[in-house]
């Protein structure tokens, strides 16, 4: 079996006594995009939090390029090349947009963001404003920009399009596709079927804390997922 970029084995996690996820397994190869769909409250965000290290595992494992990372804290996983854009509270609200984008680098250089500013000019316009004064959608775009510029081997995005206007969703798809071309892996939790169609290689559908369906992207994808979510 070839070494995958990112592997999850029999993962189980939850909050306190409450187990939310059981027996989740999947892997993602280099240059591959995996999308995770499912109704609200089925555990998608919980899964992302477990992958990023915000939530400890009850059992199972997570490997990145063969290294077991499930015991490492979030900041260490980041150091190994795992970037994560969470669903909620995605910015440092009292800090300026510029500080949000530069604080985790040694230099305060914005050059690494140039190609992203070209697609999302609004972010460049608001550099000196506090991130808390941005609208919900703008904050999501800011978070997306921060994540994608990190150029990490594995990218986790939790509902990047929530509150984002359609033309910017298209731009997000463009950015994600170019990351995939650079042989990086992307895992996206998403409700927006248009984005899923545009970027996914494979889609897994979750319900009640487990994976209930896995499929490849194709012309029937929209119907397939819509039917599953209708129940």
């Amino acid at each position: 079996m070839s070494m995958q970029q990112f592997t999850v084995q029999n993962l189980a996690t939850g909050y306190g006594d409450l187990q939310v996820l059981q027996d989740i397994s999947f892997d993602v190869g280099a240059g591959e995009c995996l999308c995770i769909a499912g109704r609200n409250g089925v555990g998608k965000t919980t899964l992302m939090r477990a992958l990023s290290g915000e939530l400890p595992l009850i059992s199972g494992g997570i490997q990145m390029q063969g290294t077991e990372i499930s015991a490492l804290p979030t900041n260490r996983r980041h150091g190994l090349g795992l970037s994560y854009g969470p669903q909620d509270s995605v910015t440092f609200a009292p800090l300026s947009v510029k500080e949000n984008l530069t604080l985790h680098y040694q230099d305060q250089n914005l050059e690494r963001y140039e190609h992203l500013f070209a697609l999302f000019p609004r972010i460049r316009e608001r550099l000196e404003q506090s991130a808390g004064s941005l609208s919900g959608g703008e904050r999501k775009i800011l978070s997306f920009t921060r994540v994608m510029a990190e150029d990490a081997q594995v990218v986790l995005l939790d509902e990047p399009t929530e509150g984002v206007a359609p033309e910017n969703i298209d731009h997000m798809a463009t950015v994600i596709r170019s990351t995939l071309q650079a042989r990086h892996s992307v895992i996206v939790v998403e409700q927006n079927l248009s984005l899923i169609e545009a970027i996914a290689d494979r889609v897994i559908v979750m319900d009640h804390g487990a994976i209930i369906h896995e499929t490849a992207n194709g012309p029937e994808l929209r119907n397939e997922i819509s039917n599953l979510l209708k129940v």
Partner: protein
Amino acid sequence: MESSVLFLLNTSYAVLTLALVVLGLAIIFGLLGVLNMAHGEFVAIGAYCAFAVQSAGLPLILSLPLAIITTGAVGWLIEASVIRHLYKRPFDTLLATWGLSILLREGIELAFGLEYRSVSEPVSGSVRLLGVDYPIYRIMLMVALLIGFAALYVWYRRSNAGVRVRAMIANPQLATIVGIDTQKLARLAFAAGAASAGLAGAMLAPLVRIEPFMGIDFLLQSFFVLVVGGLGSLEGLFIGSSLIGGAESAGSTLMGGTAGYVTVLLISILFLWLKPEGLHARR
């Protein structure tokens, strides 16, 4: 002429030492959002370090590293044992540090007793400056503080460290997501604030009376400066120190000590009510 030179020197001295005392409280409140009610006790520990060094017959300059190490270590321990659990619970940090201040004060009392102590100046005598005699130790202190604050200002402007700490306070989860070791950073900031208070205590030791209850005055003064100057910037700290130092000395000169204190209180209440973010708010 001579009296105005003296007034100028006295005011500069008051403002600079006030800024030194406030610095530790400002670091901890500005960066961690914790109003450290035990701040004054850290100053006191620093002063007792100077007393201990002098009683042992060692050169007084050794009190500076001793104070930094002692208060820094105490701060480190306190962050690790108490404060760490209380971020995002502002009322509780207020109460817990209040409890800590009692604890430290009683600890000092057990170790050194209740009586007043004093430390003699390492260099005595005075120097003639623009027609007035002024104590050498004070002049040396002022020069050292000016250099120190200038260096701190340059570092603060150039470094990313302050932004990272603020980021950590605003959204600790996201801070770890972008790779910051938040636990370590917070502990360092708290220890730095405590050490800075300890350093202030050691430097001022020859000029103040040293007793277990000395901390409260330093806490209150520092607190008023923060209220007026605003948080999170060195500029605000100096504006606040100047205003409070100036108001207190002007009030006391014109109408007596109580009036100076009352003036400062009134100014603080007005600021808390009408402009709680202070004169020089965070950008």
